[in-house]
C-alpha cells in the first residue's frame, strides 16, 4: 500500500513535470554522435588523390582491424610471422566490437556478447582459453567457463502486457494456442539443431561454410523466414514478433527479408555445451566484445597502424602495393608487399581494388544495414512490475531491440549510475535510404527517438538521464537475404586474386557473428602461410 502510494506520487510528479515541461524548452541532453569515421571513410568513396610521402616494404598487409583482420594478425603471429602491418582507419582497432568507457563502467558501442561456443570449434575454444574465458575442462572434456564472464542472473526480461516477464520468449498473458505454437516452433528448431545432412555435416553449422549442402536445407535459403513460417502454419502474432526480433537482433534484417536458412540458423546453429553452460547461455563483459578484441590484439599490438585509411590496392607482376592515408597528418603513404588480406566489408574492398565490375556486383547484391547504438548514462530508473533489471531488457512490439545493462557484469553490489546500451537496427525501408535518413538526424532527434521508446517502460527517464552517446554504424552488417548464403555470389567475392590478395570478413561468410569473422581471419592467414614462399623458407 505504502509502495503503491509512493509509485502514484512518483507518477503524478512525472506527469506534472511533463505538463510543466511542455511549456518549457525541451531539456538538452548532453552527449554526441559518434560514428565509424564516416567522413574519413567517404574520402575513399569520393576517390582520394595525393602525392605519396613515404614507401615501406612489408611481406604482408592486412587492411581492416575488425575481428577478422585481428584474427588474421593473431594467426600470423602464432605461426611466427611478424613482418606484416595491419591498417585500421579508426583511432582504435576493433571494428564492430568498439566500446566506450565512462566513470561507471565500460560499455559496448556495438557487438556485446558471444553465445556458448560450439564444441567442435577447436581454434576458437583455444583462443577463449588463452584469454581466460575457458578456465579448464571437466572429466567429460566439456569446457569450464569462467563464471566472471558467463552472463550473471537475471539474464533476460521482456516487457509484455504491462509487465516484465523473465526470458525473451513471450509467455506472460499469452493465450495458450500461441504458447502451443511457440513450443512447436522451438521443438522444430531443436530438431534442426541436431540434424545432419547426407554429407555427415551439421545442417546448420558454425562457421556457416561447414554446413551441409543437402538441397533439403539449402532450399531454405531461397525463401524468406516469414514465407517459411507461413508455409509451416506459424501464424501466432507473438511467435512472429519473437522470430522477427531474433532476425533483427542477429542479422539487422526483418524476418520478411531474411533468408529462412539464416533465420533458422539463429536457433539451430548454436549447440555449444559447457561443464557449466548451456547453448542458450551467453558470455559477456561490460565492454562487450571489446574484451575479445583486446585479447586478439594482445600479441600483435605493435603491428597495428591506426588512423590509416587504405585507399588503393594494386596488383603488380611481382607483389602488390597498398596506399593509405594517414588521417592524422593527412599524408599518403605506400606499402610494397607480397601478400594482402582484405579484412574489410565487400563494398570497401571493391573500391580499394578499383574494380568496376566488382563494385557493380556488390552494389546490386550486397545490402548493408545501418544500426544505431545509444549509450544512456543514468542514475536511477523507474521500474514497472515484474522481473528486476536484467542484462538484456526487451520491449515487446518496440521498434528497437531493447537495451543491455553494461554494468550488469560488474562484481560490485550496487552501481549507482548505470550504463544502458540501446540497440536499434534501422530496418525500415531499404538500407541506403535508411542510411541517408540516419546521417541527417541530429543528436537531439536521436535522443528523442530513444527516450520516446524507453519512456513507455521507464517513465521519467527523460528527466533522469545524464548523457546519451549515439553510435551510428552506417554499414553495420551485410544482410543475409535469400540467395546470399548458399548462392554463388559469396564464393565469387571470396576468391583470392592472383594468390596474393585474400579476403576475410564476416560478410563473405553470410552472417555477421564473431565466430565467422574469427574463422575468416584464420582461413585467410592460413592461405598465406601455406601458399606463400614465406612459409617455405
Amino acid at each position, binding site marked *: 500500500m*505504502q509502495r503503491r*502510494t*509512493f509509485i502514484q*506520487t512518483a507518477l503524478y510528479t512525472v506527469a506534472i513535470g511533463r505538463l510543466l515541461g511542455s511549456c518549457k524548452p525541451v531539456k538538452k541532453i548532453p552527449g554526441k554522435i559518434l560514428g565509424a569515421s564516416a567522413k574519413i571513410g567517404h574520402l575513399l568513396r569520393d576517390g582520394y588523390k595525393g602525392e605519396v610521402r613515404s614507401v615501406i616494404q612489408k611481406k604482408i598487409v592486412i587492411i581492416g582491424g575488425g575481428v577478422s583482420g585481428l584474427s588474421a594478425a593473431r594467426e600470423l603471429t602464432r605461426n611466427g610471422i611478424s613482418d606484416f602491418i595491419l591498417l585500421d582507419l579508426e583511432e582504435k582497432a576493433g571494428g564492430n566490437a568498439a566500446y566506450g568507457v565512462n566513470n561507471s563502467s565500460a560499455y559496448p558501442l556495438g557487438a556485446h556478447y558471444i553465445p556458448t561456443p560450439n564444441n567442435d570449434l577447436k581454434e576458437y575454444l583455444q583462443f577463449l582459453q588463452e584469454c581466460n574465458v575457458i578456465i579448464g575442462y571437466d572429466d567429460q572434456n566439456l569446457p569450464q567457463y569462467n*563464471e*566472471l564472464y*558467463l*552472463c*550473471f*542472473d*537475471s*539474464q533476460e526480461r521482456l516487457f509484455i502486457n504491462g509487465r516484465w516477464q523473465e526470458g525473451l520468449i513471450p509467455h506472460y498473458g499469452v493465450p495458450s494456442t500461441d504458447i502451443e505454437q511457440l513450443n512447436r516452433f522451438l521443438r522444430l528448431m531443436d530438431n534442426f539443431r541436431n540434424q545432419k545432412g547426407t554429407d555427415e555435416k551439421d545442417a546448420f553449422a558454425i562457421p556457416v561454410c561447414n554446413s551441409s549442402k543437402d538441397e533439403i536445407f539449402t532450399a531454405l535459403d531461397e525463401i524468406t523466414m516469414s514465407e517459411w513460417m507461413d508455409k509451416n502454419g506459424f501464424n501466432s502474432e507473438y511467435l512472429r514478433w519473437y522470430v522477427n526480433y531474433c532476425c533483427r537482433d542477429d542479422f539487422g534484417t526483418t524476418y520478411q527479408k531474411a533468408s529462412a536458412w539464416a533465420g533458422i540458423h539463429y536457433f539451430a546453429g548454436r549447440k555449444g555445451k559447457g561443464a*557449466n*553452460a548451456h547453448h542458450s*547461455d551467453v558470455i559477456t563483459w561490460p565492454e562487450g566484445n571489446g574484451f575479445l578484441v583486446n585479447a586478439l590484439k594482445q600479441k600483435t599490438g605493435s603491428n597495428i597502424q591506426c588512423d590509416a585509411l587504405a585507399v588503393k590496392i594494386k596488383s603488380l607482376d611481382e607483389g602488390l602495393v597498398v596506399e593509405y592515408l594517414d588521417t592524422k597528418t593527412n599524408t599518403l603513404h605506400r606499402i610494397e608487399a607480397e601478400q594482402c588480406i582484405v579484412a574489410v566489408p565487400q563494398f570497401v574492398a571493391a573500391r580499394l581494388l578499383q574494380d568496376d565490375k566488382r563494385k557493380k556486383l556488390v552494389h546490386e547484391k550486397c545490402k548493408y544495414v545501418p544500426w544505431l547504438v545509444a549509450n544512456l548514462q543514468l542514475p536511477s530508473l523507474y521500474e514497472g512490475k515484474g522481473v*528486476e533489471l536484467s542484462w538484456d531488457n526487451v520491449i515487446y512490439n518496440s521498434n528497437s531491440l531493447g537495451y543491455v545493462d553494461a554494468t550488469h557484469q560488474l*562484481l*560490485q*553490489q*550496487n552501481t*549507482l549510475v548505470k550504463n544502458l546500451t540501446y540497440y536499434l537496427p534501422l530496418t525500415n525501408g531499404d538500407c541506403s535510404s535508411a542510411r541517408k535518413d540516419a546521417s541527417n538526424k541530429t543528436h537531439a532527434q536521436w535522443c528523442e527517438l530513444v527516450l520516446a521508446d524507453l519512456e513507455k517502460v521507464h517513465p521519467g527517464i527523460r528527466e533522469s538521464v545524464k548523457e546519451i552517446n549515439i553510435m551510428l554504424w552506417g554499414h553495420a552488417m551485410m544482410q543475409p537475404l535469400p540467395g546470399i548464403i548458399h548462392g554463388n555470389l559469396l564464393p565469387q567475392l571470396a576468391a583470392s586474386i592472383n594468390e596474393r590478395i585474400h579476403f576475410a570478413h564476416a560478410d563473405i561468410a553470410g552472417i555477421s557473428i564473431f565466430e565467422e569473422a574469427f574463422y575468416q581471419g584464420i582461413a585467410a592467414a592460413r592461405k598465406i602461410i601455406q601458399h606463400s614462399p614465406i612459409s617455405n623458407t
Partner: protein
Amino acid sequence: MMQRKENGAQWLLLTAVFVIATCGLIYELVAGTLASYLLGDSVTQFSTIIGVYLFSMGIGSFLSRYFDKNLLAWFIKIELLVGVIGGFSAAILFVTFPMAASFRVILYALVTLTGILVGLEIPLLMRILQNKVEFKELVSRVFTFDYIGALLASLIFPLLLVPHLGLIRTSLFFGIMNVAVGWYLANHFKKELKQAAILKFSAIIILLLELVAFVFSENIMNYSETMNYNDKVVYAVSTPYQRIVITRNKRELRLFLNGNLQFSSADEYRYHEALVHPALSSVSNLKSVLVLGGGDGLAVREILKYKSVEKIILVDLDPAMTKIFSSQEMLRKINNNSLLNKKCTIENTDAFTWLKTNKEKFDAVVVDFPDPSNFSIGKLYSTIFYQLLKKAIATGGIAVIQSTSPYVAPKSFWCIDTTIQSSGLYTKAYHNMVPSFGEWGYIMAMPETEHHWFSKLPGDMKFINAGTMQQMFVFPEDMKAHEPLKINKLNNQALVNYFEEEWDKYQDM
C-alpha cells in the same frame, strides 16, 4: 468611545499573551519529547530541558530592561522570531540529529534561544500595557492568561497534538499561531508602528514558509517509515546504497537496513557472540582479522576481546553506516567504541571488488552481509566470492559467514554450505537462538580441518559457554535440507531463488 478602543487593544494583547504562553510551553514540550525519543532517558531529558528553558526565560526577562523605545514593534518582532525558531524547532532537531556530536549543542541552543525570546515577551507586554491598565489589574490579568495558556498546552500536547499531528507539525502549527498573532498585531496597530508594512510583509513570508513546511511534512509522512515500525523512529537516513533506520522503545534500540532488522540491542550479543567466537577462539595464532560488512562495529566489539589481535580491517560499502556507528553516542555505547579502536581500519568500498584486489591473508574473516534477498547481494554468496575469500584466509585461519535462518530457510542455509564447499573450503555449520530473529545460522569455512576448537574463548560472555558451544553444532531435523541443493553461482543465483521461496511464506504474516 476612546475607552472602548483602549479596552479592545488591551484584550487583544492579553489574547496574545495567552497564545504566546501556549506556544512557549509547547516548544518546551516538543524539545523535551524529542530529546527523550532521540537520546533516551526521558527523566534527564525533560528535567534538563525544563531547567534550561526556565532559566533562559529568566535571561529574557533580565534583558527586557535594555529595550526602551518602540516596544510594540519589538514585541511583534520577537513574536515573529519565536514563531520561526519554535515553529521549525522539531524539524531542525530531526534533520540535525544525524550530525551526531553537535546534536546536544543544537538542542540546548534552540531551547535557550526560544526561552530567551519567550522570556522577553511578558515583561515587554506588561510595559506596553502599563499606561493603559492599572498595575494591580495588569499583573493579575497577564499572569492569569499566561498560566491558563500553559495549562491548555500541557493538556492538548499529549492528548491531541502528538497523536494526531506528530512533533514536526505540532511545532509548525504553533509557529504559525505565533506568527499569525504577530501579523494581526502589526496590522491592528499599524498606525502606532513605524515599520508596520515591513513587519506585516515578514510575517506573511514566514507564514507561507511554515505553511509550505507543514504541508510538505505531511507528504513526507505518507511514505516515511514511522508507519512501518512499531517503535519510534529516532534516526532515518537514505544513503545512495540503503535506507538506514534506527528505532527505539523502552527496552531496546533496533537497526533496520532497507526495512530489514539487523539487530536489536536487547539480544544482539547472542548473534554477535555466536558469529565471532566459535571461529576466533579456534585460531591458534590470531593476529589479523578481516570483517566484511558489519559496519555497525558489533562484530568488531567481540573481536577486540582477543588481546592477541593486532589488526582489524573492516570493509563496509556504506560510509554513512560506519560514520554513525563511530560517532553517534547511543550507538557507540552499544559497540563499545569499537570502530574508534586504533587496531581497526575502516574501508568504505565494495567487499567483492576489495577482495578481488586484496593480496593479504587474514587469520580470521568475519562475513556479516545482509541476507541474500536480491540479486546484487546474492553475488556475495557465490562460488566466485568464496574462491576469493579462500585466498584471503591464512594457513590455520577460519572464516565465518552469517547464513540466514536454517529454521525458516533450510534450503538457503545449506545451499550456502554447499556453495562454500564447492569452492574448496571445509565447512562447519552451527546455529543459535536470537529472539529478535529466531533461530539463526552461521557457517565456518576453512582451508584445513584440524583446529584447536574453541580453545581460546575469552571470559566476558553473555551467551556462550562451553556447554552452549557444543549445543550450537547440533541440528534438529527441521533445520536440515533433506534434498540435494544447487550451488549458488553468479549465472544462476540459485540462493536468491531458494531464499525468496522460503521467506515468502513469512512475508504475508
